[in-house]
């Protein structure tokens, strides 16, 4: 039995060596939580993968696994890539964090990159984008454009990233109109076009005239288009689905990061880090400002430029919903406070699920 095992191991090692010799210099592998056809989160990550292929040609080989549910399957999928000779593995969902760390321990020579988490190791880096920067800008636009003074927010799950997005949106809006109102609806899904559309309708029916979303489908914007209302895209440019309704869209562009990190693996300079970049580095991109008057476009562009110059939307004065002060005037919240945010700013018409 033992010798059989040995023979098998040897055969695998041989096979692995054989394939490495005539294949590309680096193999980059990606694990997605949704189907690449969701036109949202996983779709954008796959666009990043395709950009890597295009940039490096034969030098880099890529592979991906889609629709890998968080849970027991995740660890197996990540481990498969580690065994199959991937040099760098991108795991693109928060729930993959502990499986990634676990597998990384057994494969010290493989580099791992986990999106949206907080645990790192010698061979595990984390990366995320400052989406809240874009949300501040669209908050400003919403407050300028809304006649009702009320915006609707379709939220997925009360995780810090979503909460900080709602707060950034509100802070942006309040910078224009201190009395601005935001109505929040939690749909408890990242992706259910029907439910998202219903939520958009409910928000419009309750008096919002602009909506924004932290869910993945284009359905809410389509509702806005039909009703002659306005909204903002999410993850990708959704202008094709709502040519008259979309003001702009907060695009996740993973391509620069993926290309940069794969290049470092090629050069042998890869090191673990925690990357959290935004508009300045092009990891978050604003889609063209459309359906807007000139002065609002100017304002949005000015804010975008200010953020790119290093200004942080979460700069005081910030008051929490319960009236306590989160940041004094001119004080900037530290990264940890933003990444772990579990409170609303004052003025939001909702109670945070605890």
């Amino acid at each position, binding site marked *: 039995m033992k010798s059989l095992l040995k023979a098998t191991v040897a*055969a695998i090692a041989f096979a692995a060596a054989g394939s490495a010799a005539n294949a590309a210099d680096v193999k980059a*592998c990606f694990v997605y939580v949704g189907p690449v056809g969701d036109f949202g989160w996983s779709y954008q990550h796959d666009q990043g993968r395709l950009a890597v292929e295009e940039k490096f040609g034969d030098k880099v080989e890529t592979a991906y696994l889609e629709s890998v*549910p968080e*849970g*027991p*399957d995740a660890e197996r999928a990540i481990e*498969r890539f580690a065994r199959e000779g991937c040099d760098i593995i991108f795991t693109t969902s928060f729930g993959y964090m*502990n499986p990634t760390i676990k597998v990384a321990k057994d494969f010290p020579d493989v580099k791992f990159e986990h999106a949206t988490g907080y645990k790192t190791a010698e061979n595990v880096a984390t990366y995320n984008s400052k989406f809240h920067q874009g949300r501040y800008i669209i908050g400003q636009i919403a407050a300028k454009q809304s006649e009702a003074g009320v915006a609707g927010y379709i939220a997925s799950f009360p*995780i*810090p990233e979503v909460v900080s997005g709602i707060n950034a949106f509100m802070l942006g809006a309040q910078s224009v109109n201190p009395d601005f109102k935001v109505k929040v609806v939690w749909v408890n899904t990242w992706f259910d076009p029907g439910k998202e559309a219903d939520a958009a309708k409910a928000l419009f029916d309750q008096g919002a005239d602009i909506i924004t979303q932290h869910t993945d489908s284009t359905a809410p914007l389509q509702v806005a288009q039909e009703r002659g209302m306005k909204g903002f895209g999410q993850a990708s440019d959704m202008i094709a689905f709502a040519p008259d309704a979309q003001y702009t869209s907060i695009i996740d562009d993973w391509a620069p990061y993926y290309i940069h990190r794969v290049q470092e693996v090629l050069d042998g300079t890869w090191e673990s880090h925690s990357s959290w970049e935004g508009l300045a580095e092009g990891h978050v991109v604003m889609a063209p400002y459309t359906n807007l008057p000139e002065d609002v476009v100017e304002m949005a562009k000015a804010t975008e430029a200010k953020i790119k110059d290093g200004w942080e939307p979460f700069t005081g004065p910030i008051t929490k919903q319960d009236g306590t002060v989160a940041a004094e005037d001119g004080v900037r919240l530290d990264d940890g406070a933003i990444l772990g945010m579990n409170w609303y700013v004052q003025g939001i018409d909702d109670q945070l699920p605890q």
Partner: protein
Amino acid sequence: MRIELVKRKEHSEVMVFLSPVIAVLLTALTAGIIFALSGLNPFEALYKFFIDPLTQTWSLEDTIAAATPLVLIACGLAVCYLSNNWNIGAEGQFVVGALFGSFLPVMLPGFESFLTLPLMLVCGMIGGALWALIPAFLKTRFNTNEILTSLMLVYVASLLLDYLVRGPWRDPDGFNFPESRIFSDAATLPSIPGTSISMATVITIGIALVLTVILTKTLKGFEIRVMGQSPRAGSFAGFSSKRLSLFAFGLSGALAGLAGIMVVSGEMNQLQPTISPGYGFTAIIVAFLGRLNPVGIIVAGFVLALSYIGGEGVQSAMGVSDKIASVIQGLLLFFVLACDTLILYRIRFSSRRAPASAEVSHV
């Protein structure tokens, strides 16, 4: 030409073994055509899909790990289905079992003793059983259709898990991310020393064997089968269909709950908003493919797990989309179900028109 089924006098022993083989061959043939149409080398793809996972230790272990919860849940479901109790909510029982079992390591993380793990497993079984007893109780008391109630409770269970993991059971050191704290070593289900095969597999095989004995050699097994085939005859023999419903649901819920806590404790080491890739539903298919027989279920669970692991294999090696993998799984099931007909029936092709009286020309 017409296709006619002619019932065999006895079910064909040859076909019992031959029908799955025919089904796999037909699947391979169809899958090969699909691969070829997608511009891939069908032989390479088929090899990657069905054979490659068997040739390497790690992929074989992965397959066994994936098969374990499927087999355990399906064993319980078999008892339900044999006795005419249509529990299709095992997914929810799996989740609630995991929740009950996780109470100790999440709420009392300091309690680390040799008792921790056994207590967790027992709690998991109790949780799954309680959740399963809801549809059973509604069925016996109010005559409510158990297919629907057990299914509805799946959604409720996963929302309950979601609520706990995002709220009260959230890891206090986890920056408000939706996950529980990580279980201590005392709360982690170990592997068989020297291998990476989990204790869960051993427990599962043990339970499957015990269940085989119960079903074939004991009065309880007789009662289950009689009540499934003919409840009237059973009631003459003094069996109570209500008590049996409660028993079957309770047992299958307990096994699903055990599977849940073993996956969480052995593989994930924490609770997350999703803890099952649909094990509870896939197990229904495993139960039928295994012909509601624990030994058959072990084989069926392995084959289905193989199709998942193999599907991932072709996806990663050849860039085949995971949609093709699920199409092939669907086809495999269809062919197996279709070929099983051959066990009980012979197929006769005849050109004879059926008597006109047996037909209705309009509906």
